[in-house]
């Protein structure tokens, strides 16, 4: 009975958000295009033969960057921006009365957006294969399944981090600047612009303890077939989720107690 109710809630939320997202197809296509930075980076790497120094062949590197593009596409999180707007305009108040944590709503929004985004990302990858026909490969089903899970875990980590930052809206009103600050290490250390394998030793020694390489580098390596430590990758991803979730719960309950609706 209860699980049935939860199922129905989730299903309805997803359906509503998906139809909402379908309305802005062009917008989502543009979002997909704005994620093509990895391809520019690939161009720099292969055009200057930089990959020879890190022992990755041209083909493997192009697969890596394509996978990095894909992982990024399906782990983009913007919850803090939506939440900030909703708090500033006082839209959170009606959500709080509902017997459903508002973050489920945002979560469904993100999942729906990813479903809408998939065809566009797929089209971009077809263009990529047309221009780089030698890098076509088909990952086996097991690897594909594992990398989808790791991409989802990476999305969860980022969603949790951003939700924690979003909860700071209850105190500071402008939490998006903190998010922009956190985005910088994510951009440079996650492997979106350069594979973590190419980083100098003094960075590699500590980077695997941070969540960053598990956001893009690990799933992308897994999917593209580059060497990676699967056991460590998954355990670190799960560890970070287990660490972040209680923090989110705490800050959420503290924040809602602190929250005073607009105009009070």
């Amino acid at each position, binding site marked *: 009975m209860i699980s049935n109710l939860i199922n129905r809630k989730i299903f309805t939320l997803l359906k509503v958000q998906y139809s909402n997202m379908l309305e802005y197809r062009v917008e989502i296509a543009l979002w997909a295009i*704005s994620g093509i930075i990895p391809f520019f980076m690939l161009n*720099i790497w292969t055009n200057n033969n930089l990959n020879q120094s890190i022992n990755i062949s041209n083909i493997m590197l192009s697969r890596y960057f394509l996978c990095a593009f894909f992982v990024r596409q399906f782990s983009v999180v913007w919850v803090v921006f939506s939440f900030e707007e909703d708090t500033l305009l006082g839209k959170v108040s009606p959500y709080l009365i509902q017997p459903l944590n508002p973050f489920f709503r945002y979560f469904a929004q993100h999942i729906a957006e990813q479903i809408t985004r998939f065809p566009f990302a797929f089209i971009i990858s077809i263009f990529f294969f047309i221009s780089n026909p030698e890098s076509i490969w088909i990952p086996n089903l097991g690897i594909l399944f594992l990398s989808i899970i790791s991409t989802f875990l990476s999305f969860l980590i980022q969603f949790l981090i951003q939700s924690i930052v979003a909860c700071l809206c209850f105190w500071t009103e402008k939490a998006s600047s903190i998010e922009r600050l956190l985005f910088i290490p994510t951009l440079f250390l996650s492997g979106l612009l350069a594979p973590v394998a190419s*980083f100098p030793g003094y960075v590699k020694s500590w980077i695997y303890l941070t969540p960053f390489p598990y956001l893009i580098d690990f799933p992308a390596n897994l999917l593209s077939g580059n060497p990676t430590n699967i056991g460590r990758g998954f355990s670190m991803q799960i560890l970070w989720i287990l660490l972040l979730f209680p923090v989110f719960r705490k800050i959420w309950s503290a924040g809602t107690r602190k929250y005073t609706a607009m105009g009070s």
Partner: protein
Amino acid sequence: MNQRKYLKVFTKFLHTSLASEFEYKTNILIDLITAILSLIGSIFLLSIFFTNNVRLGGWQFEEALIIQAIYTILNGITNTWFNPNLTEIVKHIREGTLDFVLLKPIDSQFFISFKKINPSGFLEIILGFCLLLFCIRINQINLNLSFLTLSLITIICSICILYSLWFFISTTTIWFVKTWNATEVLRSFLYIGRFPLNSFSFTLRIFFSIFIPIAFITTIPSEVFLGISQFWKIFLEIIVASVFLITSRKFWLFALKFYSSASS
């Protein structure tokens, strides 16, 4: 055109936007840290490219740093000036408040381009200039009057091109209503301005010099700094900048004919 009136209005704009932005003081501090981290991150990325290479697209590390410096300055200008104003156009058109702008006895392009100033970008500009001075020292560039005028001209041209690109995309809001993401696409394309144009493959080089002249924005000013720029390139940049400025102006006036307020 009454120049004194415009100057007076501009100082008023400056005053009000600074007053409103300084209300969020911690925000400015966070933005400063973001700017510093972002610069460190891009230098880190550049150093990865140079670990086993002496040259990237014919540029040495010290020379490529000049590009980073100019990019940082231009990015700072984008954040102080273009981004806050031109994202406002989207809001004006969506909510129909562009009516109020058009009714004012002042040029509408002037009004929407200069209304806001975001002081947090100043820090980025200062940071960029510091890096530029450092580069001038390590590259042993001797400063003389003709060099200074040439570099000033090219940087001003870059700013004009950048402004026109932003303004152009924001103007398309009149037809598409939601171009918030189109600016995001532009942002991700501009990202490649951090690297020398010669480090990209031939097709991308053509694309980024003809369709979106990012090549002109950072590479040519940097070449001027190094004293390796040919005269025709500078001349070309001046022509491109003026063509862009004039077309963006014409495009705005053309687009206004299609503006039909909200709910009409």
